[in-house]
């Protein structure tokens, strides 16, 4: 695979989910991503392309960033398939291709969901929130007090954006080549990174940051009130403690946060009115 071809796959991978549907998930996107590679591979046999594309239009679903591991591995297997000399070896390789497509998409999705959605996204959010609080941007207040430059406002958001994307784009780019050039015992390049250790360390740092943020939030909470232990302080403290306890309970009951907020809004309205 040439650099140019890798770049084309990489670029097209941003549109993997464009045709997302409930019957075959990312099938249209997968065919779109792999099309340049298949065109190059079957350049001398263009009539074979529709039937080859048909295989890529079957079910496919994985995490979009980690999908790059599937692209490289499928490209490698497609080359083997194209080189098959007998019908028996073709059928055997086709069966392997199907197995790899299915198992690798599940494995990649599992790692990607835990790493990117479950760890990196909340971690970068925490990171940004800490930066804003360090800049004295007290977002806990209904009207944010003070004046801030665009740099101060967008700086933290940009840091979160860059941190997430540096890692995501690196994995996305490397995933294609690692899985394509991987040896047979290398799990298509997936074993190149210690995913569990990375997730574990990121989560440990996340806990540290979130405790820091809660303490910081508590400081701002007290700091912004003129009279500590006055009526306003006690009212707010009770509400905060109430919601912290409620959200700990609803978390265990798997009730999403948004419903806690919506119910709280309705209950408060009723209590205040009657």
């Amino acid at each position, binding site marked *: 695979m040439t650099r140019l071809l890798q770049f084309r796959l990489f670029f097209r991978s941003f549109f993997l989910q464009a045709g997302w549907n409930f019957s075959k998930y990312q*099938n249209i996107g997968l065919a779109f991503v792999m099309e340049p590679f298949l065109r190059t591979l079957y350049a001398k046999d263009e009539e074979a392309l*529709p039937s080859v594309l048909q295989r890529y239009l079957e079910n496919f679903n994985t995490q979009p960033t980690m999908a790059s591991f599937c692209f490289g591995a499928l490209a490698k297997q497609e080359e083997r398939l194209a080189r098959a000399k007998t019908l028996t070896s073709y059928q055997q390789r086709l069966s392997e291709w199907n197995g790899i497509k299915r198992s690798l998409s599940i494995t990649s999705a599992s790692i990607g969901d835990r790493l990117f959605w479950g760890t990196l996204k909340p971690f970068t959010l925490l990171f940004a929130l800490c930066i804003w609080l360090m800049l004295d941007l007290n977002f806990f207040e209904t009207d*944010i007090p003070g004046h801030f430059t665009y740099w101060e406002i967008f700086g933290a958001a940009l840091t979160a954006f860059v941190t997430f994307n540096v890692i995501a784009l690196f994995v996305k780019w490397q995933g294609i080549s690692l899985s394509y050039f991987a040896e047979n015992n290398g799990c298509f390049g997936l074993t190149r990174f210690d995913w569990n250790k990375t997730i574990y360390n990121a989560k440990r740092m996340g806990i540290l940051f979130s405790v820091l943020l809660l303490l910081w939030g508590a400081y701002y909470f007290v700091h912004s009130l003129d009279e500590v232990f006055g009526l306003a302080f006690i009212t707010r403290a009770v509400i905060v403690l109430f919601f912290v306890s409620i959200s700990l309970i609803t978390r265990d009951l798997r009730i999403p946060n948004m419903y806690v907020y919506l119910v709280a809004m309705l209950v*408060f309205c009723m209590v205040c*009115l009657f």
Partner: protein
Amino acid sequence: MMTVLLLCAVGAFLELDTTYAFQLTFSRGIIAGPLLGLLCGDVLTGLQIGIFTELLFIDMNPLGGMLPPSATVCCTLCLALCTLHIPVYFAFFFGVIGSILFSTAEIYMRKQRSNWVARQENLIRQRPAYLGSVIRQALACACIFTFVFMLVFAGLIGPAFAKLVPHLPEQLHAAGKFAYMAVPWIGLTTLISAFRLKTR
């Protein structure tokens, strides 16, 4: 009303990043919020709405076929209602409801797309070069659908509630403020549990 139109147009484009294209996370609350806030001339409100939205939806991830409410739609609707002179704590409430409705509408749209995709597959088999056109059509449909949804929602709720706001009793405003103030705390509590070390 021009600002609402502009917000919906930019919001619809940003929303593509959530699922259909890029996934570079510029659709997440902390980025979309201040960006949209910049459009309506109140970056700080945009930022706060963005932070609150992201904290509120942090416990829902797009795993498998699950479709969490969109942070971009919530921020856009919220800011659109703010520009129609609805206080931020009420606008946020409607923004959250709007984003939940949007995810329901999006599920319906995806089910409908299955039939459309089946038809497109036949065309792709006949002419593989048609793939690019299918992708462009899918993106355009998603963008237009989001734009129309947000415009209709903001157009229906905004003017009606804006007329109601001056007549609302002061207690309701206090209730809205209290609930709004609780959002970051609900979110932060969930955020800690998001980092629980279940297995190594």
